């Protein structure tokens, strides 16, 4: 199959970018979207030009490295799928496909389709951890976790931190990411000692990074490759409120 690609090319954060058209021919419909970019890059490199820079790592949909807004949707047309797990059979033969980076001021562009998502790392550093004594590992089952809580915490922990929620949000808000990370630890017994400090510190860092507020459009939930529920944002609001009241 064939595709006409409109790819955002930008040398670095200080140089203005633009769309460049590429014609990708002889594609196999069972190629993944990133494999298609690999093929196009080989052709570009053969001509002695600079290949398209894009983020990728595991290519199994679990690492959260790949990004891209494909035809206006973060991670492309499918629900609960990352860009690396999007296959060319999802596109019509001969279609024009527009590929842009995730756009948010908190995710400054590095090159072409690659953006700097270390803002997420700084939010995790602010409170996305638990403090435990090192030494001998605890006995198995010494810390009982009710099954419904374990399931809910697991749903939140499924977040791979890709940033699609920020990319899709009209306010470039990181609420879904922060909510998932706050909820994951705040639901479990291991997270209780730092529950309030965590909610306050992670929200403070989120605001400091320049992400927007939540308008509750739930676009984040719709594009999340892991299907994180927007109701975790409500839980984060609850935890934040509780933390503010208990730690004035």
């Amino acid at each position, binding site marked *: 199959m064939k595709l006409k690609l409109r790819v955002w090319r930008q040398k670095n954060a200080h140089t203005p970018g633009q769309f460049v058209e590429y014609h990708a021919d002889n594609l196999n419909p069972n190629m993944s979207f990133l494999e298609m970019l690999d093929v196009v890059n080989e052709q570009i490199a053969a001509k002695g030009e600079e290949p398209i820079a894009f983020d990728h790592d595991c290519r199994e949909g679990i690492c959260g490295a790949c990004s891209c807004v494909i035809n206006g949707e973060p991670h492309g047309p499918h629900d609960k799928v990352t860009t690396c797990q999007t296959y060319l059979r999802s596109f019509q033969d001969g279609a024009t496909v527009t590929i842009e980076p995730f756009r948010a001021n*908190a995710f400054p562009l590095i090159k072409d389709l690659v953006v700097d998502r270390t803002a997420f790392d700084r939010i995790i550093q602010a409170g996305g951890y638990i403090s435990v004594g090192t030494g001998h590992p605890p006995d198995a089952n010494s810390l009982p976790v009710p099954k419904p809580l374990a399931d809910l915490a697991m749903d939140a922990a499924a977040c791979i931190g890709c940033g699609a929620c920020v990319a899709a949000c*009209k306010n470039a808000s990181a609420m879904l990411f922060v909510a998932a990370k706050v909820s994951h630890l705040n639901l479990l017994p291991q997270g209780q000692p730092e529950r309030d400090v965590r909610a306050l510190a992670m929200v403070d860092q989120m605001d400091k990074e320049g992400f*927007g507020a939540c308008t*509750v459009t739930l676009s984040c939930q719709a594009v999340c490759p892991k299907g994180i529920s927007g109701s975790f944002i409500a839980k984060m609001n609850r935890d934040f409120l509780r933390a503010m009241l208990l730690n004035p």
Partner: protein
Amino acid sequence: MLDRVWKSTLGKKFLMAVTGTGLVLFVFVHMMGNLQMFLGPEVINRYAAMLQTSIEFLWPARFGLAIFALVHIGTGITLTWQNRQTRDQRYATRKLVKATLASRTMLWTGSFVALYVVYHLLHFTIGTIDLHLAEMKTPDGHRDVYRMLIWAFQDSRVACGYILAMGVLCFHLSHGIGALFQSLGIKKPGYEPLIYRLARLAALGLLVGFVSVPVAVQLGWLQ
């Protein structure tokens, strides 16, 4: 703590949701008051006189509503301004996933409602727009609200403006009522679709309640 409430995005959304809840409850009570038009002049005029003469209740309520409205508008404007600073380079192609028109136009629908409220107060409460309204009194000297509404809504321009404003208000609420549960943290996984459906239904109910009065006057059912 107050510092944190105002400075954090979550705190501001919380203020917006609390004041929004208060204003929605007021709108609901207002609608219940309006619907007394269908019970005849004595009932609604007695209700109006009760409100007007309960000064100890009336002024704190007015004062509280004004503060709620100001905080709601203040957080709305600052949050919108803040949200606009988050993406300098816009997307060339943008597919709208999920975000409803109501959710994307809250600032505009809200501004329209605020302007309409000013007009509405000048029209009915203060009475500077239609001087005729101020002269309408019941035999015991209170405002004849029944006659005031009939007189005002017989003018099709007033009725149409009112219906339009109520449409915009309820469009605003169709997003707002559902969203406030998120901001206040009152939500359980799985209940989301139900909350939004009920919120839209509530907004529709308010619209029908408000619009029924001018429509009934225009159709000659209320005279």
